[in-house]
């Protein structure tokens, strides 16, 4: 395995304040026990099956496939309870939190999908829940703010900096620093300090495990391409992980190209950034020549982040995965295409993966098997696309 002592190759680590090291150690020990505990694993599996509705279908997109002359399959994470892949992770981590005796759950959220999934898990387990969300995101993803409140969570709008995901992450770490005794930080993507990237991957890899089996069953083969959008990188690592040893399968991560490739207008971290140290790990990062963190832009709140999980940096450098970017406009067009062609409203995050799929379809061998991770549904985005 590539993962060694908190690092994926050169990337990863635990770049946080010394005072949080005991909390990370405690988390790591609890996670090691969790993975060996049959009862916790059974509870998790039961929730995935009967609460989330797993396995999620691998749907053969019949109209798109015909139109593009390819075999397009959609991994339907949008059909999960709460409407995205985020719930796979929050249910796992909340059992972990309970096993540690924590009583209070805190989380960051961008699009609000992770916030909703955390609030849902906390409601289910009867735990106090506080979600930090950039003020700009509370406005552009209003329906999710309402959902979190209905689920009993407290939503704290963050007004510093760009008022988006990175500020929400910083505020959540600050809360954790002060309240680590009784509080569990339920991080929403495969990023941050070790062991979070491993924990989140562990709970999201179910996406790829199912997709791999389903694809073999439906086509008799492995896919030629697996495509996912990349914010922090959790839905992508979840679907990539079970395929990394299958050398014929191309793994493609799609980042948000925003308006353009100029400063502040995008969040294509792997495509346009370089390695740096931020929010817990050494990984690709968008920062200025003096090391300040760059402002970012994306039409999709869930991708609007200047960093990326460390394993993606490793997969990029080792060339096991390829990372590309598509623009706001291309993602929007893909949103409409999927809605009209297949009757599925995709999340704007997932629309990035679709947009690249459409481009790719025109350039690769006809009849290729392409799996797209449809990480979430688009209901939350109606205010933006209209």
């Amino acid at each position: 395995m590539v993962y060694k002592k908190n690092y994926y190759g050169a990337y990863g680590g635990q770049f946080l304040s010394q005072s949080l090291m005991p909390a990370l150690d405690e988390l790591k020990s609890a996670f090691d026990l969790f993975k060996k505990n049959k009862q916790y694993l059974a509870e998790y599996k039961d929730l995935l099956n009967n609460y989330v509705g797993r396995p999620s279908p691998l749907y053969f997109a019949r109209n798109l496939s015909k139109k593009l002359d390819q075999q397009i399959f959609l991994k339907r994470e949008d059909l999960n309870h709460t409407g995205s892949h985020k719930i796979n992770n929050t249910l796992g981590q909340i059992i972990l939190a309970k096993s540690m005796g924590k009583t209070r759950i805190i989380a960051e959220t961008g699009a609000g999908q992770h916030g909703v999934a955390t609030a849902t898990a906390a409601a289910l387990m009867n735990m106090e829940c506080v979600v930090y969300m950039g003020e700009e995101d509370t406005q552009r993803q209003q329906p999710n703010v309402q959902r979190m409140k209905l689920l009993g969570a407290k939503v704290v709008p963050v007004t510093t900096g760009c008022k988006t995901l990175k500020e929400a992450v910083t505020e959540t770490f600050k809360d954790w620093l002060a309240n680590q005794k009784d509080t569990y930080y339920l991080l929403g993507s495969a990023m941050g300090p070790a062991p979070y990237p491993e924990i989140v991957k562990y709970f999201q890899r179910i996406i790829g495990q199912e997709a791999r089996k389903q694809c073999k069953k439906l086509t008799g083969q492995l896919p030629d391409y697996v495509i996912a959008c990349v914010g922090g990188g959790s839905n992508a690592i979840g679907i990539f992980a079970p395929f990394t040893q299958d050398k014929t399968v191309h793994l493609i991560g799609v980042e948000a190209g925003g308006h353009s490739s100029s400063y502040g207008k995008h969040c294509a971290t792997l495509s346009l950034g370089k390695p740096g140290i931020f929010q817990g790990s050494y990984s690709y990062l968008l920062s200025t020549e003096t090391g300040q963190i760059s402002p970012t832009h994306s039409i999709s709140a869930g991708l609007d982040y200047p960093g990326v999980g460390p394993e993606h940096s490793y997969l990029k450098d080792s060339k096991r995965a390829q990372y590309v970017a598509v623009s706001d406009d291309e993602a929007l067009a893909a949103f409409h295409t999927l809605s009209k062609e297949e009757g599925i409203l995709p999340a704007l995050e997932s629309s990035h993966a679709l947009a690249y799929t459409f481009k790719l379809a025109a350039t690769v061998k006809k009849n290729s098997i392409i799996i797209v991770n449809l990480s979430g549904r688009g209901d939350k985005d109606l205010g933006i696309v209209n």
Partner: protein
Amino acid sequence: MKNEIIPYILANYPDLQTTKELLIHCHKLGIKYVELGIPFSDPSADGPVIQNAATKACINFNFDNLLAILLDLKKQNINLEITIMTYANPLYIYGISNFYTNFSSANVKGLLVPDIPFEERKVLTRKNHSIKNVWMISDNLPSASLKKIVSNSNFYLYLVAYLGTTGKNIQQSDSLKSTIAQVKKIKDIPVAIGFGIKDKNDVTNILNIADGAIIGTSLIIELDKSLNSAKEFLNNIIL
């Protein structure tokens, strides 16, 4: 280090000329140690006051302009012992070897990086330079980690007064005292306390138990009024 008041000065806030004047003033007051903060866009260890100041100060900050000022002060024989406090990314992008080479010739004696814990010290390790790492400790560290950190320190230790961000209220606590006692048992090394030290009274209390008291947020609040208020604030605390 014994009985030292250590001002935290945020570089380039509101501009480098002010930083320079404050450093000169510290020297005039007989202050020996200064913690000089590099502004960062996303300061995760700081409360609202320093965070707001840093988001402004980081906009046109660069290390080389600061270096020029420090070299100039040295030329004027203003020899403070400076610890640079910077978050990891500005330092990493500037280049760690670069930093050691350039800043060791400018009276910089220590380097403190709040988001590089002792466990990740490899990132900071370079051969042949005189700048020493200042590690942060807190009362929640297991004694094994404390022992490793203390035995590997050779300048002073930065004990955070509470778990949280800068600018809250310090609580007199027995746990600070006992952490210091634990440190001294491992090694005879100075301990400075920072976070939440607001006024002369806090300073006096802290210097009863520690070798240094770091004062940051209050100084910035005064600086927001005027450079003169900041100077007077320092005068009152020192004299």
